[in-house]
């Protein structure tokens, strides 16, 4: 709307005022500089209200941060408008519409009880900062200058607010920057501290490295091995002290090992080949060779070399370690020799050895044991496999042994047989001892000997011995034939007589029954007597296997005297026995002991052939005794014959030594072997008077009484 001035002076005045106002408005930003947006708005409202004589002015600022907008209102006459800024804002929005772009430049509206012209002004091109609404009751509001002022004021406000915002933003950024600087500073300080520590650490580490290097050198020079480094092409680069001292040659000479006598000439071609292969292929090497010591002797070394590589895989150098294995090598050679000896020895002695881990049933056999069992070498040995070869009759014994081994029993010695596929039998003698090995497992180590030959020889020897003993017994009996015949014929004659007497008695008209009964009773007695003698003789003649029983020597004496009784009579020898009442029992073969006593008795009788008849006496004594702290039963046979000379004593018991024309000279030798087999002794003594005494002692088999 155009303001019409009637007078130019008026107009000039108006214009001047207008320019003043404009200058005031333009000066506003300077006032606002550094100020808060709320202060800017407040001064703007005050200025506009006063400058343009407005009734009401309202500002709304959008907060860029999305917070609630700042609203502010000024009213010329507060009593005419009591509404608050927000209500006023809402009122304007109703008048103007929602979209600021489509707002009218001015609008007349009723606010409260007054009509008021309203002019909205956007702050910022798109109203992004907010807006100002000015209102006046005047109808000509806004005039041209007023609109200009308003728009300039709005622009200035926009600038001021933007600056304020910028300023606040700057302040915020500066503050943030400060904070960041402070934080970074503290971080840097911490980092610095860390760095200091690191530096100190590194210094220590370097010190440690130097120490370690010193140590490494020390170690290198004191390890019990010789160390050398070589270039990638295999040239000796450096060696440790030991190597130099061992070889007694400086590094320069050692470099020439390939052409010198450092390596044993016999080993050299092989060593060079191995070494060259490793150098060209890059594979580690490991070989054994003899290296010359400074004194000219060669000792065995194990030489190991490893390539040390750059990160890219190229070989930087070779590191070589030479370990003196001379002792080990000699031990190995000795062991090999000893193993060879052992194998030969086992083969020769038919002894095999084995080990058996009880927990795992791992069994290891020597070669010879495979040969003994006739299994293929290297066949995996199991208890089942062994069980298959063991003689079925001995299998329970084997199983018992295995069970006892599992039960912790640790020592075994026994004999068992094998039944081979061709039905032949082998006799084995086994000795095993259980030990905890390094792992704490029970392991048996044992030896097995094939004693078949020995066993067969023993059996043959036993047989021959038994036959000889038997022959001697029969011979002894032969000397008593007359006595024995008498002993049998006596009851037989009696039986015949009685039987014939009975026949005669029965021929009587009234047979005397009592007499007949008596005769028959005597027949039975005679039969018993004859059969008792015959059974004694049969025992002696029979070639039965030796059988041990607990017996009393009294019975043996009685047996012999029955057979020899009539021989005594015929030879007019008086026989006396003095056997202790408490004669303890002995363990033995009755027949063999009879044989011994028979032999001594017959010898005694024959020794008295030349003795005057009235002085022919044979005394048999028996009594318990303590000999060499052992309880024994002593039996002595004393004759009154020709005796023997002292120098004959030892020969008496030799085989084939005899003083009798028909004698075999085996009696005493066999008697002694019988007594010794019974754990006793047989010897002879010369008497104080005429004759000799033969004595034997046997271990007391009774309850030991102290």
């Amino acid at each position, binding site marked *: 709307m155009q303001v019409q001035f009637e007078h130019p002076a008026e107009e000039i005045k108006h214009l001047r005022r207008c320019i003043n106002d404009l200058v005031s408005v333009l000066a506003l930003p300077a006032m606002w500089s550094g100020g808060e947006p709320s202060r800017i708005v407040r001064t703007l409202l005050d200025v506009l209200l006063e400058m343009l004589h407005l009734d009401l002015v309202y500002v709304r600022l959008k907060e860029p941060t999305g917070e609630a907008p700042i609203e502010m209102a000024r009213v010329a006459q507060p009593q005419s408008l009591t509404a608050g800024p927000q209500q006023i804002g809402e009122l304007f929005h109703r008048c103007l519409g929602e979209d600021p772009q489509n707002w009218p430049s001015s609008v007349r509206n009723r606010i409260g009880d007054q009509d008021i012209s309203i002019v909205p002004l956007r702050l910022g091109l798109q109203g992004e900062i907010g807006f100002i609404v000015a209102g006046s009751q005047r109808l000509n509001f806004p005039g041209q200058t007023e609109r200009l002022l308003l728009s300039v004021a709005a622009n200035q406000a926009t600038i001021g607010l933007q600056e304020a915002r910028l300023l606040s933003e700057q302040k915020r950024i500066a503050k943030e920057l400060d904070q960041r600087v402070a934080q970074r500073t503290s971080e840097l300080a911490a980092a610095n501290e860390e760095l200091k520590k690191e530096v100190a650490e590194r210094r220590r580490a370097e010190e440690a490295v130097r120490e370690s290097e010193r140590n490494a050198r020390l170690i290198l020079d004191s390890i019990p091995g010789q160390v050398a480094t070589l270039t990638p092409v295999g040239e000796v680069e450096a060696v440790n002290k030991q190597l130099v001292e061992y070889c007694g040659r400086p590094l320069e000479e050692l470099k020439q090992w390939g052409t010198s006598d450092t390596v044993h000439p016999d080993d050299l071609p092989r060593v060079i080949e191995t070494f060259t292969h490793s150098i060209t292929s890059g594979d580690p090497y490991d070989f054994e060779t003899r290296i010359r010591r400074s004194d000219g002797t060669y000792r065995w070394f194990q030489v190991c070399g490893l390539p040390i590589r750059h990160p890219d895989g190229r070989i930087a150098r070779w590191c070589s370690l030479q370990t003196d294995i001379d002792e080990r090598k000699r031990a190995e050679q000795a062991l090999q020799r000893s193993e060879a000896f052992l194998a030969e020895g086992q083969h020769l002695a038919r002894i095999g050895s084995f080990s058996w881990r009880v927990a795992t049933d791992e069994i290891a056999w020597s070669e010879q044991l495979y040969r003994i069992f006739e299994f293929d070498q290297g066949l995996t040995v199991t208890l089942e496999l062994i069980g298959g070869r063991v003689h079925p009759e001995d299998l329970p014994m084997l199983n018992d042994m295995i069970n006892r081994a599992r039960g912790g029993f640790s020592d075994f010695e026994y004999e068992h047989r094998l039944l081979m596929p061709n039905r032949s039998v082998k006799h084995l003698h086994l000795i095993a001892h259980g030990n905890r090995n390094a792992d704490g497992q029970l392991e048996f180590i044992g030896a097995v000997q094939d004693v078949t030959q020995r066993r067969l020889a023993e059996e043959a020897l036993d047989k021959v011995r038994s036959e000889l003993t038997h022959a001697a017994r029969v011979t002894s009996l032969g000397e008593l*034939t*007359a*006595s024995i*015949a*008498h*002993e*049998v*014929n*006596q*009851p*037989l*004659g*009696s*039986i*015949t*007589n*009685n*039987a*014939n*007497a009975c026949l*005669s*008695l029965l021929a009587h008209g009234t047979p005397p029954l009592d*007499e007949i009964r*008596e*005769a028959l009773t*005597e027949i039975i*007695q*005679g039969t018993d*007597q004859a059969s008792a003698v015959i059974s004694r003789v049969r025992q002696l003649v029979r070639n039965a296997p030796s059988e041990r029983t607990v017996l009393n020597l009294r019975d043996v004496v009685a047996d012999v005297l029955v057979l020899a009784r*009539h021989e*005594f*009579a*015929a030879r*007019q020898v008086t026989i006396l026995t003095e056997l202790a009442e408490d004669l303890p029992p002995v363990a033995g073969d009755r027949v063999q002991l009879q044989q011994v006593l028979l032999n001594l008795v017959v010898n005694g009788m024959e020794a008295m052939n030349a003795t005057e008849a009235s002085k022919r006496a044979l005394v048999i004594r028996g009594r318990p005794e303590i000999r060499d702290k052992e309880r024994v039963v002593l039996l002595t046979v004393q004759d009154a014959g020709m005796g023997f000379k002292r120098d004959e004593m030892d020969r008496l018991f030799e085989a084939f030594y005899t003083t009798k024309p028909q004698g075999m000279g085996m009696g005493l030798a066999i008697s002694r072997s019988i007594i010794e087999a019974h754990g006793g002794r047989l010897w002879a003594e010369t008497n104080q008077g005429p004759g000799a005494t033969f004595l034997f002692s046997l271990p007391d088999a009774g309850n030991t009484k102290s």
Partner: protein
Amino acid sequence: MNAVEPIVFLVDDDQLFRRSTERLIRTAGLNVQPFSSARDFLKSPRPEGPACLVLDVRMPGLSGMDLQRELAQSGFHIPIIFITGHGDIPMSVRAMKAGAVEFLTKPFRSRVLLDAIQAAIERDRSVLQKESETRELRKRYEQLTPREREVMTLVAKGLLNKQVAGELSTTEATIKFHRAHIMQKMQANSLADLIRMVEKLGSSRQR
């Protein structure tokens, strides 16, 4: 003398055998007297009538052979039947030489023993008979004068009276006289009878 019963003596140390033998002999109807040792037998009185001895060869103490020897030395000529459990030839020869009538080895048949006993008793009986006849002849012989004994000896040799007279430097008549006395004193019925008597006397003198 003929009224005296024959008797069998039995000496054996084995009780069982002795009893059975005793029973056997007794059952055969003979008198038997057992002894368990030779000594016991020697202490017993000698028999009047015919007898025999059944003797075990081997015995403790005095053996059968010893006893035989002792009996012979003491002039007790009883027939002996040896029995043994085990006889050997040298032993039996020795025994038989010493006058044993039999040597039996046990076990023997009872009949053999009884027959031997019977034979021994008969033999003893005849010995006793001869001995008593000899005793009678000797009694008659002792009644002869020394001259008659000379004449009888020559006559028994078969000499004629004249030869005897020539031998004794006397007459034939004297010899005839002596001869008649001799025939009377000797109770001889004939010359043959007298010759037999002289033989008996001669043999008994030899024993």
